[in-house]
């Protein structure tokens, strides 16, 4: 092989090697490290057993091979050997079960949490409700559609970035109450060693105490429909003071958005804002160009609803349509966003109805 060929091949091999991670994530919590250590303990026990069993087996096959004149012995039973090969695995299993059970008990101990957050899976986004703080928001994928459609170069957090991350304080026990609004999802953040199914009608619990502020990313890990791969999880862990500030900001923003809903907006402003809302909340199904996907998701362009009476249009957006994939967006978007997106759909995407709706009308 020539030097040039080696160099050319290494170009393919080296970056791939850097990206490789075969083992479990060690994570950033005491519990995640405990789980990792348990995983490694069991792994090494399996390695030792595997090497010993296959070692003896291959040695015996080789040493007593037929070409050397080995003759098989014929015997029916050996109680001593049978007792040994029954008792030894039994003891090994029990000795593995003891630390595993201890870790499981720790994992399930959600008591005495400092912060309680309800995590609800939606097709295809997550909703976070802080039970003691009156904070409630949706977390949507923020990767631009152009990156998904290979028009733009993909950034390093491709499909692992959201518009509003979940924010939690460092060194506090945070309890997650995980459920779903539609189908089964699963909330998974590898660095926390938390992976819990979100099941409609059930509440699963999990908890985390993160030791390092930072941004941690995860994904939905239960196949939940067309955009299953497009509902990531981003958790921002903040120092206590920063977290308190964030909570205060959220409450202030809620007051501001309540005030914003009572204002009147120019149609052009509503359309401009509505386009952004549409791309984040609607384009996944109805497509960026409003053409939908024939047979699955109807087009917005020239649709009877988007060009018909505005109240009926608003009603569908607010309450969804039973029996279809069309969700109710009443809880998901603010009054301003709802007014903007309805106005945009009627005056953009090839439609030109000419009317508009104000946030105050949406609230009614």
């Amino acid at each position, binding site marked *: 092989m020539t030097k040039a060929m080696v160099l050319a091949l290494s170009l393919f091999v080296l970056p791939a090697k850097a990206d490789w991670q075969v083992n479990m994530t060690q994570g950033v919590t005491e519990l995640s490290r405990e789980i990792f250590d348990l995983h490694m303990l069991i792994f090494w026990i399996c390695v030792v057993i595997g090497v010993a069993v296959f070692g003896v087996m291959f040695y015996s096959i080789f040493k007593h091979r037929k070409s050397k004149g080995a003759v098989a012995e014929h015997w029916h*039973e050996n109680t001593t050997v*049978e*007792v040994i090969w*029954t008792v030894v695995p039994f003891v090994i299993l*029990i000795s593995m079960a*003891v630390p595993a*059970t*201890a870790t499981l*008990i*720790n994992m399930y101990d959600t008591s005495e949490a400092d912060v309680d957050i309800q995590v609800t899976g939606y097709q295809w986004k997550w909703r976070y409700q802080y039970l003691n703080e009156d904070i409630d928001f949706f977390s949507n994928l923020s990767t631009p559609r152009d990156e998904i459609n290979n028009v733009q170069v993909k950034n390093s957090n491709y499909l692992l970035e959201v518009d509003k991350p979940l924010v939690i304080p460092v060194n506090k026990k945070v309890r997650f109450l995980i459920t779903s609004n539609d189908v089964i999802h699963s909330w998974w953040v590898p660095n926390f060693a938390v992976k819990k199914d979100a099941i409609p009608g059930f509440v699963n619990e999990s908890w985390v105490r993160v030791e390092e502020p930072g941004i941690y990313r995860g994904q939905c890990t239960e196949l939940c429909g067309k955009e299953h791969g497009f509902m990531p999880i981003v958790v921002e862990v903040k120092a206590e003071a920063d977290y308190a500030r964030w909570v205060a900001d959220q409450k202030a923003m809620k007051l501001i958005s309540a005030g914003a809903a009572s204002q009147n907006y120019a149609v052009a402003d509503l359309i401009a804002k509505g386009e952004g809302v549409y791309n984040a909340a609607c384009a996944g199904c109805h497509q960026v160009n409003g053409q939908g996907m024939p047979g699955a998701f109807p087009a917005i362009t020239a649709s009877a609803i988007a060009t018909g009476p505005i109240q009926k249009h608003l009603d569908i957006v607010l309450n969804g349509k039973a029996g279809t994939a069309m969700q109710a967006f009443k809880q998901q978007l603010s009054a301003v966003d709802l007014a903007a997106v309805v106005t945009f759909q009627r005056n953009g995407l090839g439609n030109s109805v000419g009317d508009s709706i104000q946030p105050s009308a949406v609230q009614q």
Partner: protein
Amino acid sequence: MKLWLRALLSTMSAFLGVQSNERRERDFIDGKFPVFVAAGITFTLLFLLAVYGLVQFVLWSVD
């Protein structure tokens, strides 16, 4: 060996899933059914106690 002791040993072997053919045949010739039932119940209770004890030990070790 006493009949009941032999039944006890055979039942213990049954719990492990190991028994020699010789003992099995002897049990079917000499053994008494009620003695095996009593030995079976005894070992079941011992097994339950062992599982209970193990779980209590783990719970204690976690606290």
